[in-house]
């Protein structure tokens, strides 16, 4: 995903000279192609995420579409008020990119477990929140973000370079993308856990449909409601705390639609997510997912 990100950003920057890239002193052996080709639109600002975000807003005010880049919680939670007040309130064109969503940096410990970002960021007005599940979704979102003004968030896995399903249709932001058809039960996965979900669904939930949810906010309520009509049961799965994640966003839409009489029946929705606790041990991404119950089951 990192590679798809930087490759697409370089392509976009070639034809769009408003693209600016700021790294918070990370990206060794990943971001060099951008730095080398566009030295006057690249900056390593140092390990200073608050400054990075503020400087990005200043650049955005003067016409740049600025991508800020760091690891896990550093470009987001570390500078959250700059994001809320400077980026989002001023609707500044700052796209925040985090590498290592979920437990991608599992062995590195709690500082590097990025498991509340979606929930926190999707409560902030104007913020577009995305968590692609494969390189094609990553590229599509990067292209889109290069062309839209305003704030954005892109959560990347470290690896995750396998293409999942076919990107036959173009990205519809906020809508679930059908990865495979099925009946009765729909699994909606967001982010890199899509790859696991696709691998596990055949044995654990044969016949179920699989959807990917790469853009979580703003959500396409209409299409989510369509899914709720179509399926008896929905399972959401994400590498994020149970509170406030993609599953919560789905439940909110469905519940609101029911309350407003748009839906006259609600499906049974089961949310698979991290059970609102810290993980204070080391472990690979696969190990920590399993330990936290991120396993598809009926």
């Amino acid at each position, binding site marked *: 995903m990192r590679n798809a990100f930087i490759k697409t950003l370089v392509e976009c920057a070639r034809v769009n000279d408003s693209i600016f890239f700021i*790294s918070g*002193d990370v990206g060794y052996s990943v971001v060099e192609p951008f730095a080398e080709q566009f030295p006057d639109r690249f900056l*390593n600002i*140092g*390990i200073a995420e608050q400054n990075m975000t503020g400087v990005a807003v200043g650049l955005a005010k003067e016409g740049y579409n600025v991508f800020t880049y760091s690891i896990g919680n550093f470009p987001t939670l570390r500078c959250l008020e700059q994001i809320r007040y400077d980026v989002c309130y001023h609707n500044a064109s700052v796209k925040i990119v985090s590498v290592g969503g979920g437990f991608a940096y599992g062995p*590195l410990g709690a*500082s590097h477990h990025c498991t509340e970002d979606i929930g926190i960021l999707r409560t902030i007005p104007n913020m577009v929140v995305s968590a692609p599940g494969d390189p094609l979704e990553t590229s599509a979102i990067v292209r889109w973000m290069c062309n839209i003004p305003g704030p954005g968030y892109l959560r990347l896995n470290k690896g995750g370079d396998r293409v999942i399903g076919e990107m036959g249709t173009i990205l519809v932001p906020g809508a679930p993308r059908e990865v495979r058809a099925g009946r009765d039960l729909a699994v909606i996965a967001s982010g890199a856990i899509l790859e696991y979900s696709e691998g596990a669904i055949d044995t654990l939930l044969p016949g179920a449909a699989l959807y990917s949810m790469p853009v979580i906010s703003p959500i396409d309520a209409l299409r989510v409601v369509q899914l709720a009509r179509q399926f008896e049961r929905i399972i959401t799965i994400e590498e994020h705390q149970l509170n406030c994640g993609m599953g919560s966003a789905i439940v909110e839409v469905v519940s609101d639609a029911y309350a407003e009489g748009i839906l006259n029946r609600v499906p049974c929705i089961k949310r698979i997510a991290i059970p609102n606790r810290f993980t204070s041990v*080391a472990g690979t991404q696969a190990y920590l997912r399993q330990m936290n119950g991120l396993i598809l089951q009926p």
Partner: protein
Amino acid sequence: MSMRPIDLSLRIRKKALQLCHEKGASHLGGALSVADVLAVLYGEVANVNPKNPSDASRDRIFFSKGHACSAMYAVLQELGFYSGVEDKFAQNGSIFTSHVSHMVPGIELSTGSLGHALPIAAGTALAAKRKGERWKIYTILSDGELDEGSNWETILFAPHHALDNLVVIVDFNKIQSFGTVAEVLALEPLAKKFEAFRWRAIEIDGHDHAAISAALARAASASDGIPTAIVAHTIKGKGVSFMENKLAWHYKSPNADEYRAALAELEGV
């Protein structure tokens, strides 16, 4: 318990190498650069108690550059806080995460997000002052993390509150994650910056045990209301020629050949 720093620093380096080699971990360069500071601090100066890690009278040591955990886990094991880190380090289900964790006996604070420890150390120092405690508070910072504004808020705060019980040691190894300090965000003149903020700044060779020892002694005897910053000039990767001053060794884990060659160099010293 005291341990000769000269022995301890070698053991720290060897153990850090072993941990990074066997478990495929990163951040060896910054572990090797800080080994001598840790050896003198833990071996000779600090009052810590492996039998009772939360002994109320202990000196508080905050290791802000948590990514260099291999050195920290090594020194605490050498002192007897625990054993078997070589089996557990960075493994599934282990508390020995590859940034220092406060679940591990002897570690005051989990760090890994840079620029967090100094404010907490200052709060601890303030508590000691308010309670009339005589123990000291040591905080080890990397040079790169001085990019973070959080540190500078505390650098302003500590002298204002006369926290002469607070000692900062900067592992000034001149390299951060994606370039040299001079390229990315220059710090020099660093000692002068601390002085301008009304700190006592002591500049030393951070691999010279006598100099480290003398600087720590000066800091420990302070009673003038002025906090001490020891600017320790070090070499990232110190002790292994092919790792010294190389950005790549912020990331790389030594393979079998590199491990053998590195051990041979260290033992030859």
